[in-house]
């Protein structure tokens, strides 16, 4: 703890790198997982083999996976981020699939029967109704990413792992180990709490947090104030 207080600047910088890697990963991972999940939802026969493959990838130890990627992406942050993206796919795609499956078919048929096109069905019905479940997946993936990112320090990616590896390498520097562990732990806790809050906020009927201009953008000319729940 005293190490963190004494080297606040350094710890914050490493935490910044850590967070940057995590967010970069999440952005890329969601960008891949959502279309992939949609695709697999449309063609369910592919879901079993693809999910199997993603599950298999998840079992490869992180150190080994990054080493496999180094020849392709070099000894850099990119190799670490790609590894994190690969890990998070099984979680995210699974949650996208479950989220989409949780929507009753009758609802989609009602939407189509009223004359919504595929895009409106997706944006007005499927996205908001599957969002809480998908966000639960994002939360899990974020925790996994925070954990895997610590290994990144071994590959020149920086991050809080630096403290951990230094603590191991240098005799008598348990303070670095503690500092690194506490910092990683708090980062994971904070991310988890934030995403949990977001998950709560997007549950049907809780659109209170969506600001008016964004609401307009999402919902078009909505017939009424979306949120004010009497």
């Amino acid at each position, binding site marked *: 703890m005293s190490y963190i207080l004494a080297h606040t600047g350094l710890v914050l910088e490493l935490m910044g790198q850590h967070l940057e890697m995590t967010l970069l990963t999440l952005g890329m991972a969601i960008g891949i997982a959502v279309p992939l999940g949609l695709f697999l939802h449309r063609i369910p026969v592919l879901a079993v083999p693809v999910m199997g493959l993603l599950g298999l990838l998840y079992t490869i130890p992180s150190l080994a996976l990054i080493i496999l990627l180094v020849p392709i992406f070099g000894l850099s942050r990119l190799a670490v981020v790609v590894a994190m993206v690969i890990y998070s796919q099984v979680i995210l795609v699974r949650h996208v699939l479950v989220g989409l499956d949780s929507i009753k078919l009758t609802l989609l048929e009602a939407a189509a029967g009223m*004359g919504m*096109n595929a895009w409106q069905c997706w944006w007005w019905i499927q996205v*908001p109704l599957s969002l809480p479940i998908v966000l639960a997946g994002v939360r899990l993936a974020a925790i996994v990413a925070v954990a895997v990112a610590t290994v990144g320090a071994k590959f020149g990616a920086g991050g809080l792992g630096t403290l951990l590896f230094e603590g191991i390498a240098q005799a008598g520097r348990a303070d670095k180990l503690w500092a690194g562990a506490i910092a990683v732990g708090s980062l994971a806790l904070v991310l988890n709490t934030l995403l949990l809050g977001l998950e709560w906020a997007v549950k049907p009927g809780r*659109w209170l947090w969506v600001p008016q201009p964004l609401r307009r953008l999402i919902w078009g000319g909505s017939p*009424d104030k979306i949120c004010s729940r009497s």
Partner: protein
Amino acid sequence: MGARIEFVDVSLRFPRAARPAVDACSFCIEPGELIVLLGASGCGKTTLLKMINRLYEPSSGRILIDGVDSREYPLIELRQRIGYVIQQLGLFPHMTVAQNIGIVPRLLQWPRERIQARVDELLHLIQLPPEEFRHRFPDQLSGGQQQRVGLARALAADPGLLLMDEPFGAIDAITRSSLQEELLRLQQRLRKTIVFVSHDVEEALLLADRIMVMQAGKIVQFDTPFQIVTQPANAFVRDLLGTDDMVRHLGLLRVKSAMLNLDPTLIHPKEAPTISSEDTLRRALSLLLRSGAPRLTVLESDRPIGILTLERIRDLTSMGSGA
């Protein structure tokens, strides 16, 4: 006001199905009619309904809406012009009552104020005060209220045609009968063409101008409730309707279905007791017995439109019992 629907030799066979789900159906539905498709589950009634808004496409045959082949309308536009009500699960749980009702107007890009005004108008129509219900979510409504919102949603863009797929199926008996009354009340005002799927005989007798009885994809009989009860086409229809219990049916059939239409100028309303065309035959019978009059004068909106005699009701009961 209402749309006219014509089926010309329409069949639909799902891949690998043993028999067509809908088999060579031809019929005509006139504007403003309320048609009930009646049959056991799996008889093809819902499939037939869903071909009208092209959720299913027929394998062969043509469906004409207002004289034009339904395939010639752009799909989205066609569906936006047809009101669609399904069981209460059809309301979107993440949208308020107002948003749910406003969906089709929003798809049609009505201005905001017009949508709001229309939503309030419809909430009044279904007797849910807008101030209280506008902002509620579906899970804050009772089953009956949800179903009324479903009806309002289908009516939002004032379509000429309503498709209703067992809308009252999952609702308790008391609420169901009040919803049925309400639908009749609305229909008297709005005169839409309504195609209503049901497996409930009493519901069909109460609501329908004409009932289409289906079995194994085929139309067995398509006629007024009166004709179906008095002259069932075959043993299947007779069994389905349970035609033996005539007194019960009298409580469901409307006076309108049994009366003799007469030129209004020939009727002298003062000569006989009067009854509304929307009343049940059971009330008519009890009025006949009580008053001892030979016939009743049937009124619609306080205008005489026909007469009803005891013989007419007796015909109904004797024919129905298969005597």
